[in-house]
């Protein structure tokens, strides 16, 4: 399987890229029909490329996964929403202050019949990053202001009113740490969502699709099921900031990533995440459609399970789920 070429190469992918370039070169020589028989050499190199690719991507360190989660070509919320739904209607504004482009959401038909359940209307929302320089700034790098969290709450309350399940997609480097964000109550906006999401009488499925940084991610992250893409990360702080505070230097981000145990598999062990959704070899950006399909299948199966619960059972089991998270001893 040849990986799709992407314009952005991560540092640890360079040896693989070099080898792939060499392979291309040899193929080109053969195509020129120089009379040399390179068939064996090409086959040997092809197998070396495959081996190297497998050994790199099957043994990713935590820090390497963080880099894949931040890959500029990684599918964002709106990409998944397009792949998962039909007739998506994006809704705007918090009705209090403004519209925050770092948070998107609306109603759409979840294409459940494609993923093993049935088509149904859902409220789907998430953090949104921008793809190019202009859009990255417009989307504030996926860092919502309070009005983003308040818009999310308004949309989720609409879902409750019309009895539709809620799907949230988490992908943020954190809530925006700006002066105005503080003045308008960033902390209150996030806190309010935690409170209200805990008692919503409809199923809520949370999917971490990229970066899950701290309260900014959790602000739309309280639900009945926690799903996480294989190369996403989720923790209380980013590795860089953890390094800055605990090591008093920016240079220990790899150590910090390791210490924080922030990958999908780590979070399964911590009993926070219910299911890890696999990504194509090399990361979600190699095949957005198949990544979305993995998310779709997981959502379909969990929605079918959750549908069997009454609203009271749903809320009780949601609170019980968070109740069990944490580890301590008594003396």
């Amino acid at each position, binding site marked *: 399987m040849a990986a799709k070429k992407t314009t952005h190469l991560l540092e640890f992918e360079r040896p693989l890229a070099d080898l792939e370039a060499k392979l291309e070169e040899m193929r080109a020589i053969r195509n020129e029909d120089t009379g040399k028989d390179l068939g064996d050499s090409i086959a040997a190199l092809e197998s070396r490329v495959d081996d190297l690719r497998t050994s790199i991507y099957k043994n990713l360190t935590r820090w390497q996964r963080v880099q894949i989660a931040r890959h500029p070509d990684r599918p964002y919320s709106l990409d998944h929403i397009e792949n998962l739904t039909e007739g998506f209607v994006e809704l705007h504004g918090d009705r209090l202050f403004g519209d925050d482009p770092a948070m998107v959401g609306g109603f759409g038909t979840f294409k459940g019949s494609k993923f093993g359940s049935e088509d149904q209307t859902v409220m789907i929302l998430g953090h949104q990053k921008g793809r190019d320089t202009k859009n990255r700034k417009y989307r504030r790098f996926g860092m919502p202001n309070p009005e983003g969290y308040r818009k999310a709450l308004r949309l989720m309350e609409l879902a409750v009113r019309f009895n539709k399940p809620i799907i949230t997609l988490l992908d943020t480097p954190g809530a925006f*740490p700006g002066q105005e964000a*503080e003045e308008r109550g960033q902390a209150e906006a996030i806190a309010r969502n935690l409170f209200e999401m805990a008692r919503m009488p409809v199923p809520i499925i949370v999917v971490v699709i990229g970066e899950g940084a701290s309260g900014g991610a959790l602000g739309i992250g309280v639900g009945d099921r926690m799903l996480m893409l294989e190369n996403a990360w989720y923790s209380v702080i980013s590795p860089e900031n953890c390094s800055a505070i*605990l090591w008093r230097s920016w240079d*220990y981000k790899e150590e910090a990533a390791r210490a924080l145990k922030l990958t999908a598999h780590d979070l399964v062990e911590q009993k926070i995440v219910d299911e890890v959704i696999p990504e194509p070899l090399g990361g979600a950006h190699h095949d957005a459609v198949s990544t979305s399909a993995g998310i779709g299948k997981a959502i379909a199966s969990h929605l079918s399970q959750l549908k069997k619960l009454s609203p009271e059972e749903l809320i009780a089991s949601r*609170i019980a789920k968070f109740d069990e*998270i944490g580890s301590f001893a008594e003396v």
Partner: protein
Amino acid sequence: MSWFKRKSAGIKTSSSGRNDVPDGQWIKCGGCSDTVNRREIEKQNLVCPKCDYHFKMSSMGYFDLLYDGDYEVHDDNLISVDPLGFKDRKAYADRIVATREKTGLNDAAKAAVGKIGGHSLSIAAMDFSFIGGSMGSVVGEVVTRAIRRGYEQKMPVLVIAQSGGARMMEGALSLMQMAKTSAHLTRLSEAGLPFIVLLTNPTTGGVTASFAMLGDFHIAEPGALIGFAGPRVIRETMGQDLPKGFQTSEFLLEKGFVDLIIDRRELRQELIHLLDLIMEEKVNVRKKKKTPAAK
């Protein structure tokens, strides 16, 4: 990349033991820098008699200050266990042991139940001296139990917040304590019982972004730092100086996130007054049942 994340709880633990008041008979005030007699400060509930600066008070200090008399301490037997095997320059496991020894505390929060002005009140109070009052699994559990005690035994709940935020050394487990505590507050709210938050210096990060901003009543001590992101991070994001008094109690009052700023020397009386007003309604409901209301 420092500009896109809040500064979380630090390792800047105070070495001053139970309270924030330094050792010795004569103390330099953190507000006016004057030298004040220790006994004077202690008589004023750890408030500087000259400038009203509020020194940090410990959880036990607040229990003594607020309750009518005896009270039961709960959950001070919970200890952190280093679930991730976390190690930075120091191993978290060693840090826990050393901090317990140094502070005489088991972790950064304790709960209690007692009477205040005759009203039963469940309190969870935090201690900044324990790893910056940071919230890990233990603090999340202590606060949750205090809230649960409130709705199970039908009494109001007060949380005294004093924290740098979520505890980094427990990773996502710390983060989830924000959801856990907030989820239990829905039960208290639905039981019709008041939740009061006392915001003290400092209250930041994940603690502010969960239970500390979910009170029916937000009371702040004067001059406390209260916010989500740390001032340094915001300054770097904005690339400019922040307005004077930014993220103080007074600033939050002006912006509409705090109901009252109360001097610690009046805190007990004001709390009793508030509880009288709220819990009085319940007394009236009981009275009304005796004489059927006219339709």
